């Protein structure tokens, strides 16, 4: 199940684990990324918590945790090469996998049509 947040994250949910990244819209707005700081595996976050940081040449931005959960995997490929987030934000540029504390919370997020309407 593919869901989106108003903060421009996407979630690919399988069972109770969500793969999370930022959308193409967000990546395009941020510009060329030069640095990514990912959370530690095992860290827990509430919905809206600062999970990761991305930096472009000019500025740093926060990536929020979209739902309550625990980080079970992180994508080291993007720390090694932040440009992956720009070239493939909704594929190889994924950030982390989140074990959802409450899978039903995902129902309240945006579906693809609603997100597309949000970004216009």
């Amino acid at each position, binding site marked *: 199940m593919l869901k989106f947040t108003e903060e421009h994250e996407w979630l690919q949910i399988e069972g109770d684990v969500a793969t999370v990244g930022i959308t193409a819209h967000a990546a395009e707005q941020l510009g060329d990324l030069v640095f990514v700081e990912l959370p530690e595996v095992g860290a827990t976050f509430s919905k809206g918590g600062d999970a990761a940081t991305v930096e*472009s*040449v000019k500025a740093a931005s926060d990536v929020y945790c979209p739902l309550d959960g625990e980080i079970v995997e992180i994508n080291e490929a993007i720390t090694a090469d932040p440009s992956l987030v720009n070239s493939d934000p909704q594929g190889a540029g994924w950030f982390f996998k989140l074990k959802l504390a409450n899978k039903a919370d995902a129902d309240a997020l945006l579906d693809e049509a609603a997100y597309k309407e949000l970004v216009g």
Partner: protein
Amino acid sequence: MDGPSDLKKTPLHALNLSLGARMVPFAGYEMPVQYAAGVMKEHQHTRTGAGLFDVSHMGQVTVRARSGDNADAARALETLVPVDVVGLAEGRQRYALFTNDEGGILDDLMIANRGDHFYVVVNAACKDADVSHMRAAIGESCEITLHDDRALVALQGPHAEAVLAELWADVSSMRFMDVRACDLHDADCIVSRSGYTGEDGFEISVPAALAEGVCRRLLDHPDVLPVGLGARDSLRLEAGLCLYGNDIDTQTTPVEAALEWAIQKVRRKGGAREGGFPGADIILEQLEGGASRRRVGLKPEGRAPVRAGAVLATDPEGEDVVGTVTSGGFGPSVDGPVAMGLVATGAAEIGTQLYAGVRGKFLPITVVATPFVKNTFKR
């Protein structure tokens, strides 16, 4: 509340939009922060080809002695800057600083001797204050005119000369800091061999109505890409150049800012025209005895950029604070983070290991020499 309609537009506004610029408010203007290529590519291209920058937001001012004798204008300007203007030859330009009574810096600027007047280029954010400052101090002896009817562009990079030579062959005889009148595409322009990137290049003043035409001619050349303010900042940072408002301001003296080189001997203690500018006592004293803090280059050890405002300490716990980062970001040409900061003189030696506060942690950062990328000026 300010709306987009409150922002001024440069003469190249329509051109910028047509080139896919992402516009942002800057110093009261709508300015291109990047074009379609993006900051990284625009930055790298400037160091390998030729980048064209719209810097028309900056202030272009002429200073003309009412007596008709340009030496009077030179002397008048010397009452405002700790720089040798009287000895600046016609057709030459020099970096200068407006100082205040505390020895602080009001703005950094370029002064060019155009024979019968001086041509002064100041920062956009300071231009109104600078013009008022000049008029208040030297308006009686000099006519001070702000030229809103001219655009200013910079063509920077190793291919800049070859590109400009196609429009104007004379360019090849110019050396770094020369200033000349030139006829570009029937436009009556002023060209200086100078810039803000550390690369060889030119700054070109064009009458507003003809600016788009001149730029389109330059952009027609396959080596030229339009470059925005985002890359302008990363380029100047790699070149170790100060940004007014970040690295220098009214709270920094030229000595603290490591800009002593801009103060020629003739204006220092013992020189023929010693002092005579605001804050001279303090500045001349610091030139002899040093200042308590100094601007330095900084290289973060990891990949994380360390940005302006970050605290600098000598210990990894961040307890012994010795300074602050004044400019910081990512340097595409060095493929890593770069920064500059103001630190206590005791911590300013090259090689000093410091720690910078970033998101609650203190990251190792080393004092290094600038520039981070070798300058390629055609001296």
